[in-house]
């Protein structure tokens, strides 16, 4: 199968998945307790005002009609109005999604650099103290929830040592760069607003590291195992007979094939971080999509909940496709198999 055919097939599958997800989420939000109009307007709002809002939200229509109105709106880029923020859900997503993407990307960088480095170190010193230390650290990293790391980092680096800020995306007094992507670091680089870039990076470090810890632990273990496995392959032995330095074997010849499982996991981790970062965003008062999603769920904000889950679904599906493409690039066997139709 050609790569283009494969891609088209994946996209069609993705549409089916997203459609199914939208129906599921739509139904679930409709059976949650509470009248969203009454919750949004408060107990003392006049009944006619509540009924007007119910009418605008089609809450009294049959479910299939409600879904139809909602889906029509989505195809026109209208996700409805958020009862939480009182503005179009699309505006909320445009504001909060980049914040979470920026956090998750930074976490991914930490995960990639630190996870792979630690995994490589452990593999290179197999069964010695370096290896044991990394593996022990990995176990701790995997079992400890991200919010625990967040609290520890806030107390240690934010409060005791006062090295990093503990909330928000920028310090007070720092002018945010012009919004292009919504990601402050990237926008600052594009517009040349380097003060904002530095400040934004400073604010990103602790929350991103908190979010990345479990991933770093996981990546280090997977990378270590993958490298150790590949070290035993024939081509490595052959490389050694040609007196190629060990470091070159490790980082040039072994790293690429060893990264295949790592990349797959990292892709899924990135997608998960977008949705699971709620507690980290809460602790650092990070105005991200995860925290917004949780707040809207607690308030039965139907439009916002459905939109957030749909957006996360789109990201998940997209990331999966990208991961598959990267893996195909890393492993020529997969690429060649695809091109030959095997």
């Amino acid at each position, binding site marked *: 199968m050609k790569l283009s055919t494969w891609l088209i097939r994946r996209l069609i599958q993705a549409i089916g998945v997203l459609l199914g997800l939208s129906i599921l989420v739509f139904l679930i939000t409709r059976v*949650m*307790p*509470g*009248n969203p109009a*009454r*919750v949004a*307007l*408060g*107990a*003392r*709002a*006049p009944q*006619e*005002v509540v009924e*007007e809002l119910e009418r*605008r939200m089609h809450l009294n229509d049959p479910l299939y009609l409600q879904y139809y109105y909602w889906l029509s709106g989505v195809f026109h880029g209208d996700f409805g109005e958020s009862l*939480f*923020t*009182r*503005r179009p859900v699309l505006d*909320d997503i445009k*504001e*909060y999604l980049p914040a979470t993407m920026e956090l998750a990307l930074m976490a991914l960088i930490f995960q990639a650099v630190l996870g792979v480095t630690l995994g490589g170190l452990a593999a290179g010193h197999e069964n010695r103290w370096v290896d044991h230390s990394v593996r022990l650290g990995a176990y701790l990293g995997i079992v400890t929830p991200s919010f625990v790391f967040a*609290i520890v980092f*806030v*107390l240690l680096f*934010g*409060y005791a040592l*006062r090295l990093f800020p*503990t*909330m*928000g995306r920028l*310090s*007070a*007094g*720092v002018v945010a760069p012009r919004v292009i992507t919504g990601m402050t670091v990237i926008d600052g680089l594009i517009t040349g607003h*380097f*003060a*904002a*870039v*530095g*400040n934004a*990076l*400073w604010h990103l470090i602790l929350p991103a590291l908190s979010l990345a810890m479990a991933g770093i632990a996981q990546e280090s273990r997977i990378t270590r195992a993958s490298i150790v496995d590949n070290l035993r392959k024939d081509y490595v032995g052959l490389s050694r007979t040609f007196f190629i330095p060990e470091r070159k074997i490790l980082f040039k010849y072994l790293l690429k094939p060893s990264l295949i499982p790592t990349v797959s996991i990292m892709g899924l981790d990135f997608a998960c971080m977008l949705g699971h970062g709620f507690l980290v965003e*809460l*602790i*650092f*008062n990070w*105005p991200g999509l995860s*925290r*917004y999603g949780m*707040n809207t769920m*607690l*308030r*039965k904000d139907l439009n916002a909940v459905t939109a957030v889950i749909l957006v996360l679904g789109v990201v998940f599906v997209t990331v999966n496709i990208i991961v598959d493409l990267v893996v195909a690039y890393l492993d020529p066997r997969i690429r060649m198999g695809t091109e030959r139709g095997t």
Partner: protein
Amino acid sequence: MKYNMKSGLIWIVSMFLLVCMSFASFGDEKRVLTSTWSWPTYIDPAVGSDYSSSTALCNLYDPLLMPTAEGAMEPWIATDWSASDDGLVYTFTIRQGVKFHDGTELDAEDIAFTMERLLTIGEGYAYLFRGKVEEVDVLDTYKVNFHLSETFGPLLYALSRLYIVNKDVVLDNIKPDGAYGDLGDYGKAFLLSHDAGSGPYMVQDFSSAEHLYADLFSEYWGYVAPGAPEEIKMIGTTEAITIRTMMGKRELDISDQWQTDEAFEALGRMEGINLLSFFDGSAMYLMMNHTKPPLDDVYVRRALSWAMDYEAVAQDAFPGSIQAIGPFPQLLPGHKGDVFQYHQDFDRAREELAKSKYAGQLDAYPIEYHWVSEVPDFEKLALLFQANCDEIGVNIEIVKTPWLKMIDQAALPESTPAIASIIVAPHYAEAGSMIETRYHSSNAGTWEQMEWLRDPEIDALIDDALATVDTEERFGKYHTLQEMLVEMVPSVFLIEKVEKHAYQSYISWPAGENPIPVMGYTFQFRLMEVDTEKKAALLGQ
């Protein structure tokens, strides 16, 4: 060669990052006051009505009348007023020379527009005036008439919630496609993140997820303390660890009230941090659903009131609180101080039960007690009440219920919990607010009246009291109602809730010592002062 290029690239990127990071720190030189709040906040006077919104509105806008700590109303935007003999027309004289943030002058047109907008949109504090205020006439530039459809004694108190908006600014920023015909969205989208006020502070930046930053309005007409903050920041977080860290680093000046007692104790032990407690006019009740047996029997309700350990609730479960005296807080004007108060007495509880039609059959009538899962302290209360009732042979089954579900359940008598522990706050600083909210049948089916009290006699007395324009006469009627309600005991009148805050010692907060019993007004930032030298000393500068 490749190795050197790679090293060089790494060096360049590292230096670039270091240069960027050198821009990382910034300091404030202005007097800034930062506080934390439970979000979201709606800064549109026709939309917001919760605590953070009310606080923001008090600072961004001016009300028609200003409440005082003594529970009276003083002239503010309205300097003078009179009522017609039939109590249906109120004439207000408007203060001259008050400027909005855009520099234009506030006049009678803005008053009329504000009320019309509030009534039309129907959200926020509109319920205080809907069905009572028919229209507002502009008599001249500085005079308006409020026409009422029925007499409303507490009108002046309610006007502390009429925040005057700039008519021209709102009309200039209307979105055409909205729910209000020619008036489009009535400026709702604009006022989500901007202000059109005349208050001491004006919006600098508003993020619906994060914060409200506002600057001191240099042309404010009213009193501003000499050391008042030049910038205020309301931050939307109540996360304990964040609060504690920020307080320690002096990045936060006043905490929210939602911290646990343990968190407040820890904050109080920190150098340079004070704790403040005041009564905010709210009260906690065990609302007893009269449609569910055995709570339809007044003797059972009295027995439960005799069984409750009020001391444990006020001192252990909610330290600093005091037992409620009667059906609404004593802080509210119109409260009768010497009304009967229950105390724990199991013998008297058993005597009441013996008179009940359910005597000897209570085993067949277990009572479900629902507590709001978002407030963990309510579980302590539930367990205490269960243990107390066990002493008199009443079986209490405890159920944890999410807040949204409880609001839903309250809509019908059969789904409303038999007992629910709820905190209710007054909407304006007068007993009439609580009496109407809590005990008028028109509010049955809301979370503020889960007793389903539908007594025509009580309704008539409440309507009559609220229609009484003369204050002393009206308060006399409140006293009568108080005694009747204590006799009827629709709920267990538990405690008057104390509100706590941690604040920095370099903040002078006069209203904190002498609070105004109207939500938000204790946080008038223009009356606070920031001692920057003391702050610098605490920061070690």
